[in-house]
């Protein structure tokens, strides 16, 4: 559905004396039905990439297409569900009116508008805020309103930029369910986030940008973890040092260590420890696989 070929964007000052390459040579194909995550440090080019996908900016190199068309033409014809990083709506609009406007502009059939607006209000927990003006909403509520307007119409392209920014932990969890519910064949969902844990849970693949370049496309759940693991025992055990000679103590209890090693050696150590009668409370990679890929991609171990 989305094809990026050598996509680049360089911002130039009005007199063209200064140039900043925000995006450089990004090539990527995103098929129908995929949830694509976009990760990267601040200034990596995530928001520029999103603006290019929506046709709000023109590339200075390469090209982007959606179903073979330039993004601006495609979006003006079909529209996209879009949550910007900082949702901006006129302060005097009422929350329910903002959704009603979104329904009209998104060409939701007249007979279906009221039902869709009501469903979105309920789904995003906005019932008690529907009559409030946008300027009266808290950050988290405004973010939920932003999500509601993005998901109101059944667009084939949904782009969510930092969707859990300002949400409380309950709504952050709920957001994951929402993405799962929104996933369907024929639709692409793009989620840009600093929260790698969130991307690991919702995305099929994660494009990692760094200084405008696409450094890696990682599939969560695959790839190396970086080789560091945490082991926590129910109580300190004398066999621990022998099972994992290089283990580094954590927390001073004597029951928790961090261990570096290859899976085969670690399995052998763990087996020896269990045979010696130790009770293992927890064993987990110190970094998620996506986090390891991210650190490697941005050159930080």
């Amino acid at each position: 559905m989305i094809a990026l070929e050598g996509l680049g964007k360089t911002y130039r000052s009005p007199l063209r004396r200064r140039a900043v390459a925000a995006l450089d040579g990004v090539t990527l194909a995103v098929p129908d039905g995929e949830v694509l995550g976009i990760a990267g440090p601040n200034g990596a080019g995530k928001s520029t990439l999103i603006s290019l996908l929506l046709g709000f900016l023109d590339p200075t190199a390469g090209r982007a297409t959606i179903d073979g068309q330039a993004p601006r033409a495609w979006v003006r014809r079909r529209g996209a569900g879009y949550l910007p990083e900082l949702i901006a709506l006129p302060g005097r609009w009422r929350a329910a009116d903002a959704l009603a406007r979104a329904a009209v502009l998104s060409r939701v059939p007249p007979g279906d508008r009221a039902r869709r607006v009501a469903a979105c209000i309920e789904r995003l927990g906005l019932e008690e805020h529907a009559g409030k003006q946008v300027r009266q909403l808290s950050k988290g509520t405004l973010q939920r309103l932003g999500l509601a307007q993005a998901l109101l119409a059944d667009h084939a392209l949904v782009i969510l930029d930092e969707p859990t920014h300002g949400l409380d932990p309950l709504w952050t969890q709920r957001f994951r369910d929402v993405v799962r519910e929104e996933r369907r064949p024929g639709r692409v969902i793009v989620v840009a986030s600093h929260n790698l844990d969130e991307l690991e849970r919702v995305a099929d693949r994660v494009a990692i940008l760094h200084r405008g370049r696409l450094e890696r496309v990682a599939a969560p759940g695959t790839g190396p973890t970086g080789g560091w693991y945490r082991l926590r025992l129910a109580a300190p055990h004398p066999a621990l040092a022998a099972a994992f000679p290089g283990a580094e103590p954590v927390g001073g209890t004597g029951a928790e260590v961090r261990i570096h090693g290859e899976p085969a050696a670690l399995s052998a150590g763990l087996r020896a420890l269990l045979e010696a009668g130790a009770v293992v409370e927890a064993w987990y990679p110190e970094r998620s696989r996506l986090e390891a890929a991210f650190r490697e991609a941005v050159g930080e171990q």
Partner: protein
Amino acid sequence: MTGYPAAYLAWQARDVARGPGLVAAIVAGVFALLVWRLPEAAMAAGGGVLLTGYLQQVGWPLVLVATGEIVRTDRSEGYYRFYFSRPVQPALFYLVRFLLGFALVLAAVAVAVLAIWARGGGLDLEPRLLGQLSLTYLLLGGTVFLVSTATTAGPRDWLVALLVHVFQNTIAELLSNGVDLWPALRWLHAILPPMHRLGAGLDGADALHAGLYGAGLVAAALLLLDRRPLGGGARD
């Protein structure tokens, strides 16, 4: 009415009414109050004189109010992301907004006409006055529209149009008094919107010049909206 612009027209009209409409309502309301309190002797001069005076004094400021920040606020505040991530043509969206601004100016005139009529001044709205107002909207409003579309920084669009308006009328006044001006000023006077031609002595040639110039400004703004991306930067 499944989509834009028809189905959204009521929302846009509401935005105009609650924004520039408030200023227009105050201006028209103050005029109506003044007319209501005028002595009978002043009314004897005729409603047409009152209306001409009203349009000369508040016509062009109303145009600035009705068209000011027409595109720029949406871009600088980021509202355009809400509108134009949907299947909406920016050129059509802002053309409708521009026309609603004209409807607002006409509504302010209608209030003035009704106020004069209520005092027994008659409903004598000359077509010439209406034509002059329409040309002012097209030329002055068109200038605001184009500046609003083309710029995201610098002075406000209505202020730029106001400065052009003042400049053109001042230079025209100086030239008519035989003042010898720098060639650069004469050149600027010749290429800038001919707002000085919309005065009392407006003739057919003036109307044609102003009308074509104004239509060109509006067309240029629409072309920019259609061809140029709306974002200035990743988060703009």
